[in-house]
Structures are given as C-alpha cells and as structure tokens.
C-alpha cells in the first residue's frame, strides 16, 4: 500500500494505482476527458494535469503512478493554470455550437468549460472544420466538435474487440474515422455515444428529438437477452425518446448492446397495435376490450366443452414478464389444461421432469475470475453481446476461452481453441472432449463413450479444462435448440464433473429463467411447445410470441394455429396474427407495464412502467387477471403487479439462484445422430431475435439485419453445383428463395439459413435435413 496526500487529505492505495484512482477514492474530482475507468490510459487530453510536489511540471493524474508519500495538489495555482490552459486549447477549434448540439446539457466539455474556460476566446484565427463520417444508421457524427480524446477508438479496440475507429492524419488535421467506406458495425457500437465527451458522436435515431433537460430519466430492465441490462429510459410527453445504460457492475457494467439501446424505436413505430381486434365473419374489426374479452370467455368455454380442457394450449415468449407468464399459466391451468410453454425454439424436452431449471450456474460478474471456459453451441457475440464482452476481457488476462460450435463466426475473442463441426456431430465432438478429459484425469471412461475418438481440437480443449482451477462450461442458445440438447447437457455435465468445472446455460431471453420460476412450462400432464404444435390444439393463447418467427418449426406452427378454433394473440404489435388468430389483444410492451425479469444468473429485476400504455393498450397481467375473473377462476384478485410477483415468487427475493439447478440425474447419452445429406444451421440473428428489435427501424438498417442468405462453404457450394450470388430454392417443410453466399466458417454439408425473419418463416424445422437447388 502506498500513502498519498491529495489537497491535504491522505489515503492509502494499492501499488500500481494512479493519482486519478487515489483522487476517486478521496472523492476529489479531477477534470478529465480521455480518462475512462473501463478503457486503457491515453493521457492525451491533458485536462487532468495536477501539481505533484517535487515534480518540475504538472503531471496527468490519470497516468501518473502513485509513489509512497506523494503530495498532490489538484487546485493549486499551477494545477489550475495548466487545466485552464488545456481548456483554452480544447475550445479554440471547437465550434461552440452548443445551441444546436444534441450533447448540450450533458456535455463534459460544456460542463468543464464553465469551471475552466474563459468567457471570450483569445483565438481569432480560422477554426478547423472536419468532414462528417458515415458510421452507419445508429451513430450521428459532427466531427468538427471532436476533441480527439480517442475514447471511441479505444472502445472499439478494447471493449468491442475490433478497431473500427482510428485517428488518421497528423496534428491539427487529425480526424477520427472508420475504415474507408466502412461503417461501425459492432453490436456494441452505441456505447461510443455515451463515451464521447462532446457532441461529435450522438445517437442518430435520437437526433434533434429533444434537449436532455426536457427528458425524465426512469429506470428499467432490458427485455432482450438473458443478461437483463439495466436501463435508464428517457421519456418526454409519455413517449420513450432514448435509452441509456444504468451502471451496474454486476450486470451490464456501464455498457449496453445496441439492441438494448435502440429497440425502443419499435415502441413508437406504426407497427404498434393499439386497439383490440376481433375477427368476425372473416373480417377484422376493432372492438372494445369488453367485447373482445367476453368473446374469448365464451369461445374458450365452448372449446373446453366440445373438446376437453386438454385441447387448450399456451405459447408464451420468454421475453414476457414474470407476472404475465405467471398469470398466463395460472389461467391455462385454471381452465384445466397443463399445456403451456415458453421454450419455443427448443426441440429436445427429455430433461423435463428431472428438476432442471437451467441458469448460468454462477453470478455473471464471476466470469472474469474463471481461468478456463468452454462455450458449446453459441453464436456468442450476437446472442450475448455483453457476456461475450466479459469473456473478451477475461481472455485478454488469464482466461483460456474455447468454443465448440457449428459455425466459425469471429467472436472477437482470443480463443484458446475451437472446434467447428456440423450440428449432427456436435455431440460426438463433445463426447471426444469428455473422453480426452477423462483419460487425462486417469478416470474410467463412460461406456457410452467407448467408441469415441477425440479429435485434435477436442484434446486441446480437454487439456485446457483439465489444467484449470476455476473452469466453467456453458451451453449456448444454439445448443439448447438442437435435437440432441439433452445429450449435450449430459456430456457437459459429465465433463464438468470430471474437470471440476462449473456448468451453466447462457439464458436465451430476458426471462428464460423467469419462465421456469413462473411455472410457464408444462406439467406432467401437459404438452411442451413442440408437441402442442405437432399435436394441434383447438385453442391457443399466444403471449408476446410470433410463432412464425419464434418457433422451432415455423411451418408446422402456422399449420397448427391456422387449424385451431380459437387463437388469442396478445401482442403489442401488428403481427402476422391476422393470418391465424381470432382475437388480437394490444398488450403493453415492457415500457408500459410494471414487471419483472429474472436474468440468467437468477437475479430478480423488477421495473415500473416508464410511460402510459399507448392508446387502448393494456398491461398483459391486467388483461389476464380480468380474463381469469371472466371465467370465474379462483386466485385472480391481485390488485397490482407486485402482488402477482409476490405470489409467483413466494416473497420478494433478490435472487432465486437456490431454486435453479442445472444438474439432472442420468440423462441418457445418445450419440447416434442422423446425418442428412445436407443439414441446416439456423442462427437467430441479433436483430431478428424478438418482436421489439424486428420493428426497430434503425436496427433494421444495420449490417447485422441483412436478410438471410443460404450460406455454405466452398466445398458444399461446389458439390451442389452452385456459385455464391445465385438465387437458390431452399426447402425443408416449406420453401424459401434465398441468395447463395460463401461462408468458409461452416462445416461441410451444412447450409446456414437464419431464422426469425419473414423470408425464412415459411421453412420447417430449424435443424435437420434441408435441400438447396437453383431457383
């Protein structure tokens, strides 16, 4: 520990600390621009110059290491003179166009210039003008305002993992720019807006929409991936205008992924459904709530009477709130059915009934302490942008991250080892890893693995896991969707036991864990999502989901829904429900209702509505409550969402980790997999993953939102007699016309066709056999 005195106050800091760290500890503010707690030290803005005793000149607090007995003065004459001098330099070429700048009111340069700037400039020469850059649909630029702190550059390089911005040219001609003719395409790109201390980088969708002081700041939770990033939703006149991160070191740190940040645009879009709709005599009519709900009540009673309660099923999106899921299952079970599920893309349910409630298996923040990680079946960076970011940082230190997957997408993580095999071979490859690890440990090999021959990569991964002291194995979204997911689970569980690693799931959606806790999964008598569709029901309740995009077999889902007597679609949006539903109820998205998401580490995060429900939209928990009453069911007397939550959770826990469990007793390992001539790999691209992002206009303009193609490696293309760029007809269940695309990161005999998009909604199962021919 080193002792330091700053402005007369003394403290002790750890070796290697900087003067800035010590100042933070003492609560002393040192003005700065380029310094950021999560980025490397650049020391280029020079704003944090302070006087250090015995130093001949002022030193930057951010980059000066503390030495024992150091005496620092942050407000002495010499320090302030230096700081004011720097401020003058920063302002001479700055346009001072605060009245028309979106950053005005939340600008570090503006704020600090009040304290350190002069009221008039001594600079009478011409000012610099810098041409703006096109950074894509999310980030607006006013590069003349740039003060060259390079926070954005360091962010893309260090946090996002790919240096998409840099400082070109020299001296006064320096410019921050992307690669020539390229945009910034990172899924974390929006963070550079928060980092920019001036108005050089601002939000494009938010541009000129409001002044920051007109906006209310309200806390919320992201409804997208399993992380549950904490949000500040900014609101004006009951309209969401912007979303910013709320610092939470345990969850999202100070970052947001772009979908957390920009999906709000869907809330204000024309795609919102604002009135209950009823289909009568083949015509859709806008009706009042009373009519719609009474229709449902009557019709449901009819279906139950005619076909029995078991003919009722409910499909819920895992992006729905805990309260909504809880009341939906209570409603369905009240009506006498046990068929409800929120695991719409899952195909292998053989772990049901084994007490498995999949979760991360550890706190999110502990990822950085892991020394070995194996991720199985995950489009990691696009499925879990901020969890991937944590792994990226960990991999830079001492963590060896390995990946077993069906596609070789660049995760921008320094991987220790990777194995990319066809989906049908994933289980066998994992079995190889298990066998190699077992052999390395000198333990007895499981009889089921007797014939397995570990590959070179498998041995490498096994060796890394065996040599670790704090390892973890995670099953990704893709692994959870596969037909062999229970086998993968069993193998991963065995591997964890052998290597002493922790074992967890990367939760697919904001409420994947919450769905289990709310019991929105079938009971012993009920049908799971797949069976509800393969064995069509007579009545369906669809909550927040778009079955044609969200289900494991869209083709089959549409057939089942279209054949039903009653389909009630509850959604905030005008969806394809008009093709199959009988009633469509406009329910509130996450910003217009209070609710709870339980993230993948079991953290219970509740939030309030940040705006009033749009038009006739109503929170789904209220709708379900009224429906329960209409059917005369017991237990629908809750008068607040908090009451629903308390009932669902049996109290007000902050975590439900103790109710979560990844360990199953002896799921069978079945390594026999059918190997079709050509098999589909279906990713769920980041901006097609849920109803909100699909309707966020700016996100839809990004490169990640490019329409799905039929991607194959060169060998597969050649074998099929195709060339990249050709129009091809893809068939599995249904058909789709797509463009063939070369993707050398795919295994032989595989076609990658993304799910979650209109273009591929007509296709059948997300995996298994598929055919491709020239269109």
């Amino acid at each position, binding site marked *: 520990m080193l002792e330091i005195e700053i402005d007369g106050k003394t403290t002790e800091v750890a070796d290697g600390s900087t003067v800035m760290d010590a100042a933070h500890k003492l609560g002393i503010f040192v003005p700065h621009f380029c310094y950021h707690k999560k980025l490397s030290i650049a*020391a*280029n803005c020079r704003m944090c110059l302070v006087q250090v005793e015995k130093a001949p000149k002022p030193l930057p607090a951010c*980059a000066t290491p503390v030495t024992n007995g150091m005496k620092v003065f942050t407000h002495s004459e010499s320090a302030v003179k230096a700081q004011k001098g*720097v401020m003058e*330099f*920063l302002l001479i070429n700055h346009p001072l166009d605060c009245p028309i700048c979106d950053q005005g009111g939340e600008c570090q340069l503006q704020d600090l210039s009040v304290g350190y700037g002069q009221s008039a400039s*001594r600079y009478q020469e011409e000012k610099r003008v810098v041409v703006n850059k096109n950074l894509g649909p999310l980030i607006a630029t006013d590069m003349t305002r740039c003060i060259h702190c390079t926070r954005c550059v360091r962010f893309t390089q260090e946090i996002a993992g790919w240096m998409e911005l840099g400082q070109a040219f020299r*001296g006064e*001609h320096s410019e921050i720019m992307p690669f020539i003719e390229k945009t910034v395409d990172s899924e974390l790109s929006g963070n550079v807006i928060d980092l920019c201390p001036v108005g050089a980088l601002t939000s494009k969708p938010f541009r000129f929409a409001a002044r920051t002081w007109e906006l209310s700041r309200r806390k919320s939770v992201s409804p997208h991936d399993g992380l549950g990033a904490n949000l500040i939703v900014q609101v004006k006149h009951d309209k969401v205008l912007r979303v910013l991160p709320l610092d939470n070191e345990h969850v999202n740190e100070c970052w947001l992924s772009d979908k957390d940040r920009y999906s709000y645009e869907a809330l204000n879009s024309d795609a919102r459904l604002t009135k209950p709709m009823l289909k009568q005599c083949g015509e859709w009519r806008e009706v009042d709530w009373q009519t719609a709900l009474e229709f449902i009540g009557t019709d449901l009673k009819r279906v139950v009477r005619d076909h029995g309660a078991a003919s009722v099923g409910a499909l819920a999106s895992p992006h729905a709130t805990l309260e909504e899921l809880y009341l939906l299952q209570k409603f369905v079970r009240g009506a006498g059915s046990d068929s409800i599920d929120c695991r719409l893309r899952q195909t292998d349910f053989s772990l049901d009934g084994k007490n498995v409630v999949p979760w991360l298996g550890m706190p999110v923040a502990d990822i950085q302490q892991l020394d070995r990680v194996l991720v199985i079946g995950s489009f990691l960076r696009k499925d879990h942008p901020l969890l991937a970011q944590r792994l990226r940082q960990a991999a830079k230190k001492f963590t060896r991250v390995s990946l077993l997957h069906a596609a070789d997408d660049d995760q921008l993580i320094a991987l220790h080892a990777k194995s990319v095999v066809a989906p049908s071979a994933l289980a066998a490859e994992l079995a190889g890893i298990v066998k190699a690890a077992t052999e390395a440990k000198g333990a007895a090999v499981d009889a089921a693995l007797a014939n397995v021959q570990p590959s070179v990569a498998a041995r490498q991964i096994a060796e890394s896991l065996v040599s670790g002291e704090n390892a973890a194995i995670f099953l990704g979204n893709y692994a959870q969707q596969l037909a062999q997911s229970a086998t993968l689970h069993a193998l991963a569980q065995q591997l964890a036991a052998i290597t002493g690693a922790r074992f967890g799931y990367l939760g697919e959606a904001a409420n994947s864990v919450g769905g289990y806790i709310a019991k929105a999964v079938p009971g012993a008598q009920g049908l799971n999502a797949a069976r509800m569709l393969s064995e069509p029901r007579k009545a369906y309740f669809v909550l927040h989901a778009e079955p044609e995009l969200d289900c494991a077999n869209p083709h089959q889902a549409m057939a089942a829904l279209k054949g039903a007597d009653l389909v009630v679609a509850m959604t905030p949006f005008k969806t394809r429900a008009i093709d199959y539903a009988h009633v469509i109820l406009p329910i509130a998205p996450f910003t217009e209702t209070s609710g709870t998401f339980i993230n993948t580490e079991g953290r219970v995060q509740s939030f309030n509505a940040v705006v009033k429900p749009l038009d006739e939209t109503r929170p789904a928990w209220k709708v379900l409550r009224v429906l329960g009453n209409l059917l005369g069911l017991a237990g629908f007397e809750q008068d607040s969402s908090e009451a629903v939550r308390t009932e669902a959770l049996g109290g007000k826990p902050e975590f439900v980790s103790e109710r979560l469990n990844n360990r199953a007793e002896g799921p069978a390992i079945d390594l026999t997999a059918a190997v079709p001539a050509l098999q589909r790999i279906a990713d769920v691209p980041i901006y097609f993953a849920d109803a909100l992002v699909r309707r966020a206009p700016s996100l839809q303009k990004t490169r990640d939102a490019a329409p799905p193609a039929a991607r194959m490696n060169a060998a597969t293309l050649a074998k099929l007699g195709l060339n990249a760029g050709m129009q091809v007809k893809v068939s599995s269940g249904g058909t789709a016309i797509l463009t063939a695309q070369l993707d050398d990161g795919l295994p032989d005999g595989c076609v990658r066709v993304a799910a979650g998009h209109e273009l591929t909604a007509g296709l059948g199962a997300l995996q298994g056999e598929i055919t491709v021919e020239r269109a």
Partner: protein
Amino acid sequence: MGTLGFILEAAEGERSWRLAEYVKRGGYDALKKIFSEKIPADQVVGELKKSSLRGRGGAGFPTGLKWSFMPRQFPGAKYVVCNSDEGEPGTFKDRDILRWNPHMVIEGMIIAGYAMGCQRGYNYIHGEIWDIYKRFEEALVEARAANLLGNNILGSDFSFELQAHHGYGAYICGEETALLESIEGKKGQPRFKPPFPASYGLYGKPTTINNTETFASVPYIINEGGDRFLELGKPNNGGTKLFSVSGHVNRPGNFEVPMGTPFKDLLEMAGGMRGGRKLKAVIPGGSSAPVLPADVIMECTLDYDSIAKAGSMLGSGAVIVMDETTCMVKALERLSYFYFEESCGQCTPCREGTGWLYRVVHRIEHGEGRPEDLDLLNSVTDNIMGRTICALGDAASMPVKSFIKHFGAEFEYHIQNKKCLVPEDVQRAGSGFFKVS
C-alpha cells in the same frame, strides 16, 4: 583509429562504406577485443560511463547510465534500437555516418547488444533517405556474411541479429517511443512515460534506443578506453561531435570536432560568413533549440554545458547560421509551420497550440500583426511547454520564445509598420538565390 575525427574523417577513403575498408581502418577490432579478452558486459558499460559519452540525438543523456538501466537478467526478448530518423531541420549528420561508415554503427550496436544482453536490434532509418537505407542494408548483408551478425558471432557464444527499418518521413517518429510504435506497425505517436522503454519498450520488452552517432562512438571507446574518449572533449562532455553547419556560411557541411571547440573555430572551418556579411543569430542545436544572438554564441564553446549556460541546447549539433540579411519573423514563421505540420495530434496543447502559434506568426509576417500578439505568443507557448506527452510541444515553443526574447524589436517593428525591418531586397540578396536589384 589515430585521427581525431574517428567517425567521418577516418572514413574518407575510396568505398569507405565497404566492410573490407572498415576492417582495414581497424573496424570490428573492438568487438574482437571483447570476445578475445572476454570483457564482461559490466565492464563495457563501465567504460562507457567513464567516457562521459552523452546521447548524440539531442537530449544529451549519459549513454553509460542509460545502458545500465537495462534489466540484463530479464528473461525473454530485449531490444536495442538505433534512432536514425533524423528529421530535425538543420540536422544531417546521421545520414553521412550511415553513408560513409555504416559498419561503425553496426559494430556499436552489436557491442550494445552484448553489453545489455539483447539478441535483436533495429535501425530505424528516416523515410526520405532511400539511398542511405539501401547502403545500410548492403552493409548488413556484408556483416551477416562475415558472421558479424547472426548466431555465435565470430565463434563466441553471443548471437545478435540486426534489421533495418525504413520510416515514412514523419518527424515525430524520431521521438523514441513514437519510433517504437512505428516499428510495431502502428501510427507513430509517442507513448506516455513512465513506463520508460528500458522497462516497457518495443513489443512491450525492455529496449534501449540510442542515436546513430552514439552507437558510432562506441567502438572507439572500447578500443581506446573511456578515459581517452573523455580526453578528446572536455569533462562531462566526452569525445568528438559532428556538427551540421548550414545557413549563411561559405562551406556548409558536417564537421567533426572535439567537444568544447569554440564556436568561432567551427564557423571558420565552415568557411566563415557568406559574402563577408555580419553574423546575426545562430540556432546551435537544431530547429527546436532556442536561437542565440551573434554576441552570445561567439563566446560559446560547443559542448552541452556551455551552450546550456548561454540559454540554448547543443541538441543534435545542427548549427543554423543566419546573417544580417535574415528577417527573423520570416525565419520563425517557417519554423512554426514545420512544427504545426509535424505535430502528431495526439495530445491537446501541441495539436491545437502549434497551429495557433503558426497562424499568429504568419499574420505578423504578413502585416496583420496586433500589438497584443507578442504577449499572446508567449502565453500560448507557456501553455504548451511542459504540458505535453513528448517534447515536440517544447520544441515548437522554444523557437517562438527565444526569437521574441532576442529579436522582439524586429517583431514589434513588423507589427507597427506592417513590413520587415530588413528590407525585402536585402533579404533576397542574402538568400544567395537572387541578384541584388
């Protein structure tokens, strides 16, 4: 190696850059001596300390001391880097060393590698001197063929490989950490220090960077001993030094003279003032050194201490001589433009300040000066100096400050009368390019 000017003067024979010629002059004797006498590394560094050799790149840091900072026991890669990125206006000595005597630099670097336990070296050569780069590469080929570079040099157990690296002409890459960034393939921008290169240098490994002339002085010190080298110059200022004399003299060029030689003598060696005109001012150490008026410089001897006492720096030994036909405002305008163009743009005071300085000086030169401009210039330089990551900010400020200090009257005349104190036609005549009208 008997002559006084052992670097350049000794290398005046036909094809002096060839290995054979160098060996004839006693080249690589120092290296052989180290191997045959098994001189330990400590002793090599000790000899350097004794010699009072100070860094020839401009800062004048004692070389022996610098070498002793290298953590020789540090396991893994360590580097020795030669800074031949000679970009300072007025300086043109390193290119002549590499042109006529490249092997002396190579030998110096091998000895440095031996002394500091490095197995790899780089010579970063300025981007605008292609022929020199080529010649150095040829010298490396010769040295490798003669097992002077590579594994087990001359049968010893010491191995050392040396590469040349061609820069792209940016002045800032002469700053040692920017140079390292540039070798690493990154944009040439100085790093914040600490950590210093001795602990975190090239590719993050301990690295020592010296000037070309510094390395070229090493073989002599090993051959003749540190004491002998020190005796060449004067106490605390060992050896001889190359001075690049340019400007209004009859015979501009490089002159290798002992440290402590009176300026008067150097001026005489350079053929005296052109056209017999009167000396007005001298920048004694490259464009970033403060200018000294004639009466001050004529009393100086050429060594670090004397020049420093007079208020300037010996720097890289680039002596820019200006006679009475020089307009000091125009001269400063040109210098300020250089620093404005060459600032790397990384840190605020230099990026913004150099442009400000240039624009104000430009305005004064063009008859648009204002009475408050000189105070403004002084205040801006105060705000740049000592506030930047590297010394370029200081380098840009010192000419401004010293020109105003010594020739303030000329600036004031410009501001008041909107023209030069030295009439235009006199300036033209002095340039040597125009006839007197």
